[in-house]
């Protein structure tokens, strides 16, 4: 043997003889896994919203969304929860990184052996609640897969805004819209939250795919006033957005606005198919969102539609109530003109009950739709309310929107905390006044959109929260000042939100030129003949309808603010769309 060294060195391994192996622990202990070990799943059932993003991203198709006991579908929750097939799972953890709520995680449990194939199906969090203590791999805050930040919307500067009624929000540019649309995970929770159940994931998907025309078609499928919604919708969809749980919800409203703004004439893109006339006539009282929506889709189905509107323009409260810096006239006209092209006949300046009787409309048509809205303001019930320059926000906004000159003087106080109050305040600012909002509760209790409140503050509107108006003081029949007292918040005995309670003696007086009341409105049914009023079921000022928007009188349908409690445009549109089904069903037996 030439290589003696080579023959001997291997024997050095003998030094390990008798030593214990270093890969096994003595006495035996179960392996402790690393802190971010990717073992079996765990799901916080309460935090999970059943959006199904985990199931979508799973490349093994190991995740099914199933109905489980004890979780009911609701607002922003599909009622479904993931079930993992551990026979298919590869523990890549993409489901965890993609989970919009962070409810899904992986645990340190890594061993499961059973002859029963069903035991490999795991509903995390339900089948293994004890694993909550053993969570290891969780969503990362610093290396996110989803984008939680919204593409910011460009707006006019606060100081610039008050100089005119120019539109405040400038809208997304193409690149911005694409980027924002890309954030969506297509869960569809928004669809259930939208009163009109618009095809939100579909049109957002189309925008992300750079197909704006397709987006517009999806939008017009059940909303004929999308540009209006794109600007002023109360967007209940965004409140349930899956991305909104850990980040900012997708700007669904702005995306809709973007899609509609791309096309000056929707008809060119939509090229709607209008059915042959079916010989049935429908009269619509009130040209607001409800009436217009019903009219548009009825016209598409071949109905002969006439809309009667008291104001000089169509649009109802969206024309009369919403200030032009939020919803400009040309945008409204564009949508109305398109409806006219489809064949909806519109009659402006016709007040039903005065210029034409309701009975005539009813006799001339096979069905009638009532969408008159809430245009009569509640009064404050204060001394001095009847003074000159003590006005109502709804009347004030309507006069400004119609184009009348309204002199509010130098100092204005608006009473109320809803969107109407904020609108009145911001309009007054644009008319050159110093504006104070007096609201009985705290700012966070205001029913107005937070964006509106912020916008008002940016424009220099002063908000006095917990201020209760006590008396409007006049001089020579005109408003001179307003007396208000400060309130403290006390818990509500009935479990509602805290109530304001006047603090004795803490009273202030504010010099003002105009007081604007904005504490709510109601409907004016005076145009209805007595026999109809007797027959029509009305509860708390609202017409009672069935789910197809049919009233207690079979040929009379109703929708909008005078029916639903949400009192927003999208609910009115939804009513109109539903009423089309009801009217078709009633007249054509479809």
């Amino acid at each position, binding site marked *: 043997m030439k290589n003696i060294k080579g023959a001997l060195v*291997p024997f050095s*391994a003998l030094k390990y003889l008798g030593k214990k192996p270093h*890969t096994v622990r003595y006495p035996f202990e179960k392996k402790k896994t*690393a802190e971010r070990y990717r073992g079996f799943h765990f799901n916080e059932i309460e935090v999970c919203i059943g959006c199904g993003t985990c199931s979508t*991203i799973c*490349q093994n198709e190991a995740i099914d969304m199933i109905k489980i006991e004890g979780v009911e579908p609701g607002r922003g929750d599909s009622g479904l929860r993931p079930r993992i097939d551990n026979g298919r799972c590869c*523990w*890549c953890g*993409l489901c965890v990184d993609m989970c919009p709520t962070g409810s899904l995680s992986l645990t340190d449990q890594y061993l499961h052996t059973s002859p029963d194939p069903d035991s490999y199906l795991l509903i995390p969090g339900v089948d293994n609640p004890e694993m909550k203590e053993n969570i290891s791999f969780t969503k990362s805050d610093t*290396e996110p897969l989803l984008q939680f930040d919204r593409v910011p919307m460009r707006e006019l500067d606060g100081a610039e805004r008050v100089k005119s009624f120019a539109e405040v929000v400038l809208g997304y540019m193409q690149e911005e819209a694409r980027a924002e649309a890309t954030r969506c995970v297509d869960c569809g929770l928004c669809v259930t939250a939208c009163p009109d159940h618009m095809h939100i994931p579909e049109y957002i998907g189309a925008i992300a795919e750079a197909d704006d025309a397709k987006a517009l078609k999806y939008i017009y499928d059940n909303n004929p006033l999308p540009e209006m919604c794109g600007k002023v919708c109360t967007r209940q969809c965004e409140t349930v957005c899956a991305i909104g749980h850990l980040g900012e919800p997708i700007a669904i409203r702005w995306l809709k606005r973007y899609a509609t703004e791309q096309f000056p004439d929707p008809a060119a893109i939509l090229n709607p198919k209008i059915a042959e006339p079916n010989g049935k006539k429908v009269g619509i009282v009130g040209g607001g969102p409800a009436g217009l929506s019903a009219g548009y889709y009825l016209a598409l189905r071949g109905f002969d539609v006439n809309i009667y509107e008291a104001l000089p323009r169509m649009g109802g409260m969206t024309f009369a109530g919403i200030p032009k810096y939020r919803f400009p006239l040309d945008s409204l006209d564009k949508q109305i003109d398109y409806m006219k092209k489809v064949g909806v006949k519109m009659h402006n300046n016709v007040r039903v009950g005065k210029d034409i009787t309701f009975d005539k409309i009813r006799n001339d048509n096979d069905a009638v739709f009532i969408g008159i809205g809430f245009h009569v303001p509640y009064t404050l019930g204060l001394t001095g309310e009847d003074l000159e320059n003590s006005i109502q926000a709804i009347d004030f906004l309507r006069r400004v929107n119609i184009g009348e000159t309204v002199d509010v003087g130098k100092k204005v106080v608006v009473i109320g905390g809803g969107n109407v109050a904020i609108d009145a305040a911001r309009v007054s600012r644009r008319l050159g006044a110093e504006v104070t909002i007096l609201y009985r509760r705290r700012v966070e209790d205001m029913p107005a959109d937070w964006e509106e409140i912020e916008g008002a503050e940016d424009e220099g509107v002063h908000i006095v929260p917990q201020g209760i108006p006590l008396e409007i003081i006049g001089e020579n029949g005109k408003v001179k000042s307003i007396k208000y007292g400060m309130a403290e918040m006390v818990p509500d005995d009935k479990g509602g939100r805290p109530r304001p309670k006047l603090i004795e003696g803490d009273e202030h007086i504010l010099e003002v030129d105009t007081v604007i009341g904005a504490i709510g409105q109601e409907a004016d049914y005076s145009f209805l003949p007595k026999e109809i009023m007797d027959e029509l079921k009305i509860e708390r000022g609202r017409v009672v309808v069935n789910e197809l928007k049919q009233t207690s009188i079979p040929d009379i349908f109703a929708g909008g603010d005078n029916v639903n409690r949400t009192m927003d445009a999208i609910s009115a549109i939804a009513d109109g769309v539903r009423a089309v089904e009801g009217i078709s069903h009633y007249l054509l037996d479809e």
Partner: protein
Amino acid sequence: MSAILQEKETTLYLGPQHPGITGNMMIELKVTGDTIRKATTHVGYLHRGFEKLMEERLWMQCFPIVCRICVPEPDPNEENLARAIEELEGREVPERAKYIRVMMLELSRMATYLLWMGGQSGSAGLYTMPQWTVGDRDYIIDLFEELTGGRVYHMYIWPGGVRRDLPEGFEGRVRKVLDYLEQRLTDYDRLLFENAIFLRRAQGVGILDKDMAMEWGVVGPPLRGCGIAHDVRKDEPYEVYDQLDWEVITHEGSDVYSRAMVRRKEFEQSISIVRQVLDKMPSGPVHNPGPNPLKWRVPAGEAYVKTESARGEFGYYVVSDGSLKPRRVHVRGPAYVHGVSLLERMLVGANIADTSFIMNSLGTCPPEIER
């Protein structure tokens, strides 16, 4: 042995389940006596159609697939896919992530070489060595587990950087493992690389001459074992390899022994590279996020990227048509050349007992042949 036995041709089937085969594949041997006259490889036992699967997956969903293309060494696959996508998108990778990637790739090389040491010595009948190296490999696997959450399939290097930052105190634990492995090298040398039995079995066996290696497209340690200094890390540096101090290792001899010595030295070199990475690693973010994976479109185009894996140059050709899914992902791995074409050629005239020995020296990975 009689003349009749010498001439009678016998067929032997090695695999698909055989400890000497580095995965599930079969070699059909026609032998006379104990000399191989013809070798035919049969693959397909592991075929899962990864390349085709990816055409039906979102870009992000490909990321848990590619690691399966080579079980013992998944990281170069992740690296290739990530880098190809980054090239198509023009996405920048944070500096820290680049360092972490190099650390992962080198640790993965070391883990693979440890497994190879076990296989190479095991196929020569030296059974203590696999016990040691597989056990020592577990220390690296433990590091992977701590860093990535997975022991074997890491799913860690992804487009835009890496998935998570280093845990608290991780660098110290890496250094500890490196120190341990460095000290173990002496043991490995004594037991295997200086072992007279190994030298007798390895020297002059499995000759692959320079010209043939070049002609057949051989890469990695088998090529460097022919004295040719070819290493992607040096030739076309990626990540931060050009900022680290290291040289391409070659060895003259063209036999199993020279290939073994290349790996042995590269193992030592990897320890040094990881230490440099730990010294130089800057702080900062580790991931440059991209779009929402569900709506992620990679710009249309094609990219060919390559990484020096433990088996050699490892390439990915990725084509995007601008849609949500890859149009084509083609994996160009060394295993097909080494484990099918070349092996069939090299086994002719070899001794039956050297079949696994030669196969191991080439670094074959059957799942990669059948990606």
